[in-house]
């Protein structure tokens, strides 16, 4: 583990009991982060650009079937498989524990995408365009990615930066709940909680200690920053 050089260690808890699979987070993410618009063809080719996807699983046999949802975004691993394989440091670890992606360094080897066990990295196979009124929606805080580069969820790093700058201006640390990514902000069921895991009293840190907690593919030893709270209670299979 690297030395902590920052008072922050951003993380997220997703309560699967609360998730309704509505997909609002996916839309919010798309709107916030200048994620490319994909048409039917691109999606059917498996080249959609979503940074966040809702995985849907069926549990049980018909007619006793239940559906379970699993929102998956970049897990911001602390031992991220995508980082050491990049030959040009486009994928790197920042002091806040975020898994950064520097678009203008990326040459497009796609090695990180292969090595990501969660398959959350998306590659710009196409040059994406925003037709006329939609281009007004582009956020000036974020680079519009060209074709040939890899991208992925950044935990809305632009919001984190802004909150940190404001806090610094007032000579304090970022308060719990002061910053949240677009997906967590939008979730109508409040299934997603974002915050500083390094602060043991923050809401996200308390939830991450829940007995219901688990992480995706824990056995790979990637140490993700995203915790899930097991859903389903007694019916869980």
């Amino acid at each position, binding site marked *: 583990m690297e030395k902590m050089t920052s008072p922050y260690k951003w993380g997220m808890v997703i309560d699967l009991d609360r998730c309704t699979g509505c997909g609002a987070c996916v839309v919010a993410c798309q709107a916030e982060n200048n994620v490319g618009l994909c048409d039917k063809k*691109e999606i059917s080719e*498996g080249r959609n650009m979503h940074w966040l996807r809702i995985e849907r699983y069926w549990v049980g046999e018909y007619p006793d079937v239940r559906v379970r949802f699993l929102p*998956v975004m970049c897990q911001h691993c602390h031992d991220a498989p995508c980082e050491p394989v990049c*030959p040009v440091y486009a994928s790197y670890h920042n002091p806040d524990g975020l898994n950064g992606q520097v678009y203008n360094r990326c040459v497009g080897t796609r090695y990180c995408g*292969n090595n990501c*066990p969660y398959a959350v990295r998306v590659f710009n196979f196409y040059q994406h365009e925003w037709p006329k009124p939609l281009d007004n929606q582009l956020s000036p805080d974020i680079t519009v990615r060209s*074709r*040939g580069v890899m991208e992925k969820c950044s935990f809305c790093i632009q919001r984190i930066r802004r909150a940190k700058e404001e806090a610094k201006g007032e000579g304090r640390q970022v308060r719990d709940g002061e910053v949240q990514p677009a997906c967590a902000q939008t979730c109508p069921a409040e299934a997603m909680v974002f915050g500083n895991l390094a602060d043991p009293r923050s809401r996200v840190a308390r939830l991450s200690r829940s007995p219901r907690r688990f992480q995706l593919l824990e056995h790979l030893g*990637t140490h993700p920053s995203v915790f899930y709270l097991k859903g389903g209670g007694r019916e869980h299979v």
Partner: protein
Amino acid sequence: MSEFQESHNSNVSHNSHSTPPAKNAAHINDDLLSSLRPPTLRWYLLAFFLGAVVAWGLAAFTYQMMNGMYVTGKNRPVMWGFYITGFVFWVGLSHSGTMVSSILRLSQANWRRPILRAAEAMTVFCITVAGMFPLIHLGRNWTFFYMIPYPNQRGLWPNFRSALLWDMTAITAYIIGSSLFLYLGLLPDLAVARDRTSGWRHTMYGILAMGWRGTSHEWSVYHKASTLMAAMIIPVAVSVHSIVAWDFAVTVVPGWHSTIFPPYFVIGAILSGVAAVITLMITIRKAFHLEEYLTPLHFDNMGKLLLVISLLWSYAYFVEVQTIWYAHEPIEWEVFGFMSGKYTPQLLVMLLGNSLLPITCMCIKRLRRSIGVMLVVSLLVNVGMFIERFLIIVPSLSHKNMPFAWGSYSPSWVEISINIAALAGFALLFTLFAKFFPIMAISDVRELEARKAEVLLGRARVPSIAGEE
């Protein structure tokens, strides 16, 4: 000269066991330099055809660069496909020269001599072709220099933790090393060519021969240098393919993350290399009418080598699959099941070409000495090896850890065109090389003939050169 060839051919066909009589130096020079004669119309047609295929590949590459990677068949999660398959395949082929040439040189197998040059040249051209694939497959090809370590305005040094950087380092070292190896072996032959040509060719060979005169001092330095080079190029070759294997083995992708990969890849590389040398020997033999230099004996020996390597490959493959089967780790087993289910015909062709066919055929002396059988077997080995690379790369990526994100892959016309153009490019480079440089090591062959020649010493006839054999 024609009389000489005829009489000798009949001799070879009658009894290939007995040592053929020594050929004299002038004949050997004439025979082996005959490939340098001005090209015929057929040569031009061949070169033009290969050039056209390469041009088609370049057009496909330009099309991909202008439009984006969507013109390939890649998607999420299968982000590597035919280009990386081609890359690993060509790196494998490039092991022909080093392995065949160095090992046989170091073990002083005299039958190696007519094969050396072709094998060494093949190494250089294969690794050149291989080195282009990682650049073709980049999403932003025009920024490839970001990966080169040099002081730059970006203030960034490349990431040496990445296996891709190891790749680049190893391949660069191998290109340099194998070119030097080829060039060193060419020196005395360039001098022979220099002395027998006029005009611009004379000037070219003169410059390239670097004033070689054939003094005993030069020869002694030459022999030391080539033995040293042969010994040094082997670790480089082994490291190159181990590093290519590490591209896969150091990841967390199921089916890739395996300790046997480096030796398994090296064995696979030698297998495809040896097979490719056999194919090339047959082609050269036919194209330049060198039947009396590439005799069934050579094919017999190469067949034995192929048998050994094929057995080794089968062993390594068995070990890998057996471990997966015994562990029955769910996701690895899923990958294996997907591979054997979706790609059953390919898998069978691979097992047939790499294992069953070479092992059964190469056990039989008559088949080893049959040019037709050798051609079929050696070609099938390389078809099998290409499939093997594909089956390592694509099924693992298709069924990674998250079942929701499973996918599949089929190559697009752009990827297929570029792979075919790579083959044509290799063939073109080799065709040009064979026209401009002696394709058989004249000095080596002559040394062998000189060894065979016997001299009278008193009443006894003894070999002219006291050698190890």
